[in-house]
């Protein structure tokens, strides 16, 4: 067999990795990798330093008293149990209000809506997601003032304000989650003689479940630290209140704000409590995203 031209040592090999072009390409590859890494580090830096600072200043204040005692009848001290409970109750009620509305609106947009009404709803959702949070608070206040007169302060008012902020976030991310469900699954259900509502309830929603959970968690995390709308709706109070329909209710964000603004005689202790409240809020948000991950993973294990 005759030797092929490419095999002779004199001819340059096409596969040789030492060629100038290959070296230049590897160099560009490395430069791009380094640039991307640097951009990532730059993006993480503020987040890391924020977490560090909040933890450093907040941890000393996170004693047992912080979570067990309210500030009722205490001058310049006490705990934040009333604020922790208030945050959980106000946000919880907001979730109860916003999630059904948001999910149903998202189902309308992806499964039922056509033409003008759908475009109109989508526009409204866009406009709603741009509402400044204080406007949502004033809206809730004005709504309740109509029925209960001026100066009204209730936990549920704060929930209504937060729900106004949550709904567009839930709609938008739930819509994305529902859109990912392949049309072929809907068709498979229809071809079995399944009515549309049952197809949605038993096939589309379960398939999008993980995404819907994320939608709810994102929206919750978005509002759990809101301050302005709660200042004008739930008010400030030193004692524990677990009933959102009865009088003022404190919460962590407003607690941090008031401790900072009017620290009283014991400035350092008040600042410490404000940081502790901030750290607690971050903890709640983290717990929410961890819970979402957990639910998603359990769901993925069941389906995959």
């Amino acid at each position, binding site marked *: 067999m005759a030797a092929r031209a490419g095999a002779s040592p004199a001819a340059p090999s096409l596969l040789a990795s030492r060629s100038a072009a290959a070296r230049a390409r590897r160099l560009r590859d490395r430069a791009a990798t380094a640039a991307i890494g640097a951009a990532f580090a730059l993006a993480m830096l503020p987040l890391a330093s924020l977490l560090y600072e909040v933890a450093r200043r907040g941890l000393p204040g996170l004693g047992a008293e912080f979570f067990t005692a309210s500030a009722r009848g205490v001058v310049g001290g006490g705990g934040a149990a009333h604020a922790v409970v208030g945050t959980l109750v106000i946000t919880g009620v907001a979730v109860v209000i916003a999630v059904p509305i948001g999910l149903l609106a998202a189902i309308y947009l992806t499964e039922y809506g056509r033409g003008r009404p759908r475009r109109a709803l989508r526009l409204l959702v866009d406009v709603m997601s741009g509402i400044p949070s204080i406007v949502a608070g004033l809206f809730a206040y004005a709504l309740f003032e109509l029925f209960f007169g001026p100066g009204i302060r209730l936990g549920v008012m704060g929930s209504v304000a937060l729900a106004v902020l949550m709904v567009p976030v839930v709609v938008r991310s739930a819509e994305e989650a529902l859109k990912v469900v392949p049309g072929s699954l809907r*068709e498979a259900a229809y071809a*079995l*003689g399944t009515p549309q509502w049952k197809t949605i309830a038993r*096939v589309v929603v379960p*398939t999008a479940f993980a995404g819907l959970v994320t939608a709810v968690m994102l929206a919750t995390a978005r509002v759990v630290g809101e301050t302005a709308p709660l200042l004008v709706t739930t008010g400030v109070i030193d004692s524990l209140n677990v009933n959102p329909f009865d009088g003022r209710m404190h919460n962590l964000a407003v607690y941090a704000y008031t401790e900072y603004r009017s620290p009283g005689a014991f400035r350092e202790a008040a600042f410490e409590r404000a940081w502790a409240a901030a750290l607690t809020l971050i903890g709640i948000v983290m717990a929410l995203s961890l819970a979402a991950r957990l639910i998603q993973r359990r769901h993925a294990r*069941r*389906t*995959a």
Partner: protein
Amino acid sequence: MRRAKTIEVEGVSLHYGAVEAVRGVTMTIEPNKVTALIGPSGCGKTTFLRSLNRMHELTPGARVAGRIALDGEDIYAPGVDPVEVRRLVGMVFQAPNPFPTMSIYENVAAGLTLNRRRMKRAEKDAIVERSLRGAHLWEEVKDRLHKPGASLSGGQQQRLCIARAIAVEPEVLLMDEPCSALDPVATLAIEELVAELKSRFTIVIVTHNMQQAARASDVTAFFNVERSGEPGRLVEVGPTERIFTNPERQATEDYVSGRFG
């Protein structure tokens, strides 16, 4: 052998908005036979298939003109519920589409659990087993019925979808290129299954594969589109053997002999 239903199609035209996809189809689809719809891409055979169980109208803007009757009963008559039509006319799709949140067992039982009132566990077990046996899948999955449907291979998934479709005991089974995503071995398994299923169902199968039409069908309908932009038409329908050996129309001959398409 169970006598399934006849489909009579008279002057059916199908539109997507202003576009006419299929014009003037008239044919009778015989019970307990396999009818293959063949033709080049864009000739409207899938659109026509989807009009037989009222899936066509799920596309926004889609319209149907003409008459389609199931044993004499017009499925487009006012007052007919498309959901009821689809219970009588089942469908298997091009790509296997088992429900990803359901197990193998739940997938087969889906048509029952999604539609009917509650039934006894034993009754449901029996239907699931019968349907999986009917789809030649039982032996392969009987030990893992509660594993996800998506864990099966492509060919197994398609047989799972067939089991799901026959579990609700339809009269007619529509198959839209059921083997186009499968390898030859899985394709052969589906073709054997189709030959067996015609003892219980009327089967209409869309295929791009002419050998498949020749092997697996009793009757062949050739659809064609003369120029792009024109609606597809039914050129010729007849016993498969005649269509492939002695067609009446030149276009049919050109197509089945591989001269175009």
